[in-house]
């Protein structure tokens, strides 16, 4: 297939995934921000949402005050934020339109209807309740898009590039949450913050829709190191770093087999997966959670670039 087509598919999936991630971050933040300070609401929640979205620099060019209204506006609607939910869905729709024939009718209708719907929404008119409904709607768009891809695409390179885009973005998103919140996950905070940090941890889990999963996997109360374990090393958890990389390696292998050759992307992805595979959570804390995550994000970016160089240009 055309490199440009593959590139568009890859980015459609990344942007849809990113829009959903932003919606979940905002949802989780709105929840913790309403808690009294004694339960973990520290007043810095909106700032940390900005950091998690990687949008802090751009934000301060537009706004001075960090609060619910400004952060929501910037992350959801602001035209100057290249990764606002509105821009993500707009770019995804443009990418899909440019390769209209490479996505299935169901995928196109999902993204095109979402974009048409989104154009009708007036940012100013959204109260807290409407915002919550809107964020749910964004998550639904992503779910429908993902489901359409899963159920309607031929299992060929077009599908694999779509999945690669989604998984690389997902790994990046999960790592970002950990990067911003790592300090509340360090083991010693158990002594310092005690159960008060429960709401911080719960916010992280909600950000990756894993609060319920946590209980099913560990069958115990929320412990910070187990939260880290779940998001980094647990194979059952679809948004964990290791799960994302299992999928990435699998689809890169499919591509390698179909095209009869492998390259740099395969080596990078396999190395990252092997490293995750041979790691236990104690090692991560020994090495330093923050350093571990920083390295991971760098490696993930390197993989993205290698895929672009090898296939998409």
């Amino acid at each position: 297939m055309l490199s440009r087509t593959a590139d568009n598919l890859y980015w459609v999936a990344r942007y849809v995934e990113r829009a959903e991630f932003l919606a979940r971050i905002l949802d989780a933040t709105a929840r913790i921000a309403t808690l009294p300070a004694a339960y973990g609401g520290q007043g810095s929640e909106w700032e940390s949402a900005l950091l998690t979205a990687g949008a802090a620099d751009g934000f301060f060019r537009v706004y001075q005050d960090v609060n619910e209204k400004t952060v929501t506006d910037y992350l959801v609607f602001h035209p100057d934020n290249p990764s606002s939910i509105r821009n993500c869905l707009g770019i995804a729709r443009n990418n899909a339109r440019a390769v209209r024939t490479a996505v299935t009718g169901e995928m196109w209708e999902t993204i095109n209807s979402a974009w048409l719907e989104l154009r009708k929404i007036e940012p100013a008119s959204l109260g807290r309740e409407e915002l919550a409904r809107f964020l749910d709607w964004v998550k639904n768009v992503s779910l429908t898009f993902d489901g359409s891809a899963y159920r309607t695409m031929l299992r060929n390179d077009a599908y694999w590039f779509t999945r690669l885009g989604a998984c690389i973005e997902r790994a990046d998103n999960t790592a970002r949450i950990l990067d911003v919140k790592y300090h509340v996950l360090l083991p010693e905070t158990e002594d310092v913050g005690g159960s008060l940090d429960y709401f911080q941890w719960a916010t992280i889990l909600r950000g990756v829709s894993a609060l319920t999963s946590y209980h099913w996997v560990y069958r115990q109360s929320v412990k910070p190191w187990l939260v880290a374990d779940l998001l980094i090393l647990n194979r059952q958890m679809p948004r964990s770093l290791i799960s994302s990389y299992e999928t990435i390696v699998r689809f890169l292998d499919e591509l390698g087999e179909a095209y009869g050759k492998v390259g740099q992307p395969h080596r990078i992805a396999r190395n990252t997966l092997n490293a995750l595979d041979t790691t236990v959570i104690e090692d991560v804390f020994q090495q330093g959670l923050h350093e571990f995550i920083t390295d991971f994000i760098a490696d993930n970016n390197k993989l993205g670039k290698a895929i672009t160089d090898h296939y998409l240009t």
Partner: protein
Amino acid sequence: MAAFDEMNGIAGDTRDAYRRLKDWLDNAPPDLMSLRRSQAELFFRRIGITFAVYGDEQSTERLIPFDIIPRVLTKPEWTRLEEGLIQRVTALNAFLKDIYGPRECIRAGIIPADLVDNNPGFRPEMVGFRPPHDIYVQIAGIDIVRVDADTFYVLEDNARTPSGVSYMLENREVMMRLFPELFRDHRIAPVDNYPDRLLQTLRSVAPPHAMDEPTCVLLTPGQYNSAFYEHSFLADKLGIELVEGSDLFVDDEIVYMRTTEGPQRVDVIYRRIDDEYLDPLAFNPESVLGVAGLFSAYKAGNVTLANAVGTGVSDDKAVYSYMPEIIRFFTGQDAILKNVPTYRCREKDALAYVLDHLGELVVKEVNGSGGYGMLVGPHATSRQIDDFRKRLKHDPDGFIAQPTLALSTCPTFVASGVAPRHVDLRPFVLSGSDRVRIVPGGLTRVALKEGSLVVNSSQGGGTKDTWVLDA
């Protein structure tokens, strides 16, 4: 001047082709019509059929209005049109081969040399070059109007990159979904084999080295082009890659596309980019839409361009007026489809007549298209007429004039109910190395404003499904 109505003729008696349709219209509740119309609009919106209007920034994507009442042609009417179209397009191809080759028609005095050589559509780079299989216009859109029961005129030949065929196909698709009972009650010739015919045509004109299994692609200027929807629609139906200039590159006079598996050779390019933008090395150096080196690959015989470079010289409005003579010269027959009587303003007497009768004529820029740069005398203000008078005197060669035709009307569902509106017809003619192919019908365009004669979608025109009755 009362116009001939496709359904009711001049006298108001329902014509045979429309009898069943009229019964149905008379009995259909008005609510049903409105409902079907909004369903049709929803359908078009969802599948993403939109077109962009240049100079209209607010709405870069708009729906072309679709009218749910079809335009109907009988089999005998169509058969005659078809013969005329084949004859005309055959002559267009022979004419192009001649003017870029031996130039016999110029020597024979059929057409003045300066009209060819000074024509902006003429490409001197093509002189002496013969494209694969000697075919220049693989895809033509011939605009036809009707003035009475028996008379069809060719209004314009489109031999460069005619568009609109996706509407022909989608209009039919929508009509079949919305009005299955009408399709049950009529025997309507299908059009959905057009993509298949187009692919056959493209494959048939591949360069000799690739005749077995040619790789065909559709080259688009990209998603901001007004016809992008059509480009992607056709590429999908044909099962060929939709490429932009940046997807292609030329190495050693061979064209390749960039794929995820590395470079792949391309043999036939159905290009929807104008000549000027095809290759920055050969034509407009500023073009970012084209492919550097494409023209040299073409001249080396390594790739087929459909349509060929330089076909614009044949569909220009000044050359148009010579088409009856051109057809006679190259086919030995009289033209089956008439031209609209045309005053060539480059000729002194004609210019004098035109200047005296601006209020009753249609004046067109020789190189304009899309209904821009056109004066419709009877509907123009005196200021517009004065303005055109100046332009005509300044550059008489740049204009032709034609009498205002009483274009036929067709019943159309408008705000006030069902009312007659003027229509034209654009059939699409495919010329391969083996034969000429035409799918019955074409795109009917309708001027939605009462009394308006301008059917272009960029100026408020709409479209209709076009039926050719098989029995």
